[in-house]
C-alpha cells in the first residue's frame, strides 16, 4: 500500500535519487583510490544527502492514508536524523542560550523539536507530486558548510519556489542547519521572534519554553 503510493507519487525526485545513488557509488569509488577531485565530490555528496532526504520525506510523509500521529512519528525521526537540532536551537536562542542552565537548555531543545513536529509534519500530507530539483551546490569557504540551492514546484500552484538548504558536514555526515525560502531564513526568523520574547521576559529561557509548550498545546487541541 505504502510502496504503491510512493511508487506512483514521486517521480522526479525518485529518478534523481536513483541517479544520485549511482553518482554516490562513483564518488565512493573515486575517493577510495582513484584520487579524483575531492572537492567536487564533497559537493556532490551534499547534493546526494539532500536528494535522499527529500525522497525519504516524500515516501514517508506525503501518503494521505498514513494516520496523523504516525506521520508525526516519522517526521520526528527524519528530523532528528537529518537536522542539527542542537545547533539550530542554540542559534535561535542567541545570547540567551549561553546563560541558560543545562536542564533549561535540554528542556528547550525538546520543546523546540515538538514545535517543529507539530508545525510541519501535518503539512506533508498529499504533496507527493511535488517536484524537487537541485540547481546549485556550493561549499562555503573556510567552513564545513554547504548551500544546496533547490527549486520546489508544488502540484497545486505550479509556481516554483526557491529553497536554499544550509548544510553542515562532519565525520558523521551531513545535517541541515537552515532552510531558506526565497531569501527568508527559518532559523533567522525564529531567532528574531524568540529573541523578542526573551528580551521582554528578562532572558529567561524557561519562560520561552513554557510559552512554546502552551502554544503547541493549544494548537494540537484546536486541530482535533
Amino acid at each position, binding site marked *: 500500500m505504502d510502496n504503491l503510493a510512493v511508487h506512483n507519487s514521486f517521480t522526479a525526485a525518485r529518478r*534523481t535519487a536513483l541517479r544520485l545513488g549511482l*553518482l554516490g557509488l*562513483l*564518488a565512493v569509488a573515486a575517493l577510495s583510490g582513484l584520487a*579524483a*577531485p575531492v*572537492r*567536487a565530490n564533497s*559537493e*556532490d555528496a551534499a*547534493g546526494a544527502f539532500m536528494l535522499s532526504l*527529500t525522497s525519504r520525506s516524500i515516501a514517508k510523509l506525503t501518503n494521505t492514508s498514513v494516520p496523523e500521529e504516525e506521520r508525526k512519528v516519522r517526521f520526528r525521526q527524519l528530523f532528528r536524523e537529518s537536522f*542539527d537540532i542542537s545547533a539550530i536551537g*542554540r*542559534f535561535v*536562542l*542567541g*545570547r540567551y*542560550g*549561553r*546563560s541558560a*542552565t543545562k536542564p533549561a537548555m535540554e528542556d528547550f531543545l525538546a520543546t523546540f523539536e515538538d*514545535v517543529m513536529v*507539530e*508545525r*510541519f509534519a501535518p*503539512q506533508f*500530507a498529499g*504533496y507527493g507530486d*511535488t517536484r*524537487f530539483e537541485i*540547481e*546549485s*551546490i556550493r561549499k562555503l*569557504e*573556510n*567552513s564545513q558548510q554547504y*548551500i544546496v540551492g533547490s527549486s520546489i514546484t*508544488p502540484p497545486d*500552484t505550479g509556481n516554483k519556489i526557491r529553497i*536554499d538548504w544550509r548544510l*553542515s558536514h562532519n565525520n558523521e555526515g551531513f545535517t541541515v*542547519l537552515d*532552510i531558506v*525560502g*526565497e*531569501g*527568508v*531564513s527559518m532559523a*533567522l*526568523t525564529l*531567532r*528574531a*521572534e*524568540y*529573541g*523578542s*520574547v526573551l528580551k521582554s521576559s528578562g532572558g529567561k529561557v524557561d519562560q520561552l519554553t513554557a*510559552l512554546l509548550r502552551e*502554544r503547541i498545546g493549544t494548537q494540537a487541541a484546536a486541530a482535533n
Partner: protein
Amino acid sequence: MSSRFFNWLNAKRVAVLLFTAVLAGGCATQPDQIVWQTGGAISQELSLTASVQYAQASSGNDSDSLYPGIDDDYDENDPLEIPNRFIFAFNQTLDVFVLKPAASSYRFLLPSVIRDAIRNFLRNLATPVVLINDLLQGEFERAETTLARFAINTSGGLGLYDFATGEGYEYHKEDMGQTFGSYGIGEGAYLVLPLFGPSSIRDGIGRIGDIFLDPLTYVGQIYDVETELLAIPLVNGIDIRSRNIETLEDLEADSIDFYARIRSLWRQNRQNEIDNGRNEKPTVTPGLSNFDFEIEPKDG
C-alpha cells in the same frame, strides 16, 4: 515536499501581504549583516552536543552563530518599536474585521480565471513604475522583460491574460524603495504604516516617489478621477490578501510574537527583493546540478 510547508517560509507571499490593506509590497531592509559569502570557522561550534558546556557567557559573542555576521549585536533596526507595535495591532484589527472578510468573499465569489485576469490587468497597469525602476537600477534586461510583457499582454488581450510568461518573460516587481536599496541606501528604520503594513523609512519615501512616477496619478488629476482610481490599490490589496489566507493563518498559528515574526520575515524578504533573488551566487557543480551521470573534474 509540501507547498504549505514552504509557505511558512515563503516570504514572497508573506511580506507582500500582511495588512497591506491597499497597495502591495512596501519596502525596506538592510541586512548588510547577512553576509552569506563569508564562511567562518564555525563548524566546530555547530556540532555541539549535550556534553558541551552551556554557560559560557564570557566567550566570543557569535560562537553559536550559524551565520557569520549574525551575532548578539544583530538587531532588527526597530527604534520605533512601540508605535510600530501599536499600528501593527491596528492593522491586524482592520484585517480581521475588514480585509480578510473582503478577501475571503472575493475569493469565494469570483472564479480563479476572473481573479487572475484582474491581477494581470492591475500588473499591466503598473508597468511604468516597474519599468522606470528597472532602468533606475541599471537592470536593462529586466527592463526589457517588463517592456516585452507590456507589449505582449496589452496587444494580446488588453492585459487581462498573461501570455508573456509563456514566452519566457516572467513577471517581476520593482519599486523605488528597492531602487534606493540597490544604491546602497539603508532602510533607516523599520516602520509599520497604517493600512500598508510593514515598511521602512526608506521604503515609505520610495512609496511616495512611486506615486509621482505613475502616469495614472496625472491621469487622475487631469480628468478629476482621483477618487475612482483608488479602486486600483484597493482591489490590488484585496487580491493579494485573498491569495494569502492560509499562508497567514499558518504563519500565525504557532507564533509567540507575531509582530517580531512578521518584522523579520518582511526585512529578509525585502533584502531578497532588492538583490533580485541574487544574494546567493553559488557555483554550479558539474554533474550534479543537471543530473548528468558523469562527474566532471572541477578546476582548482
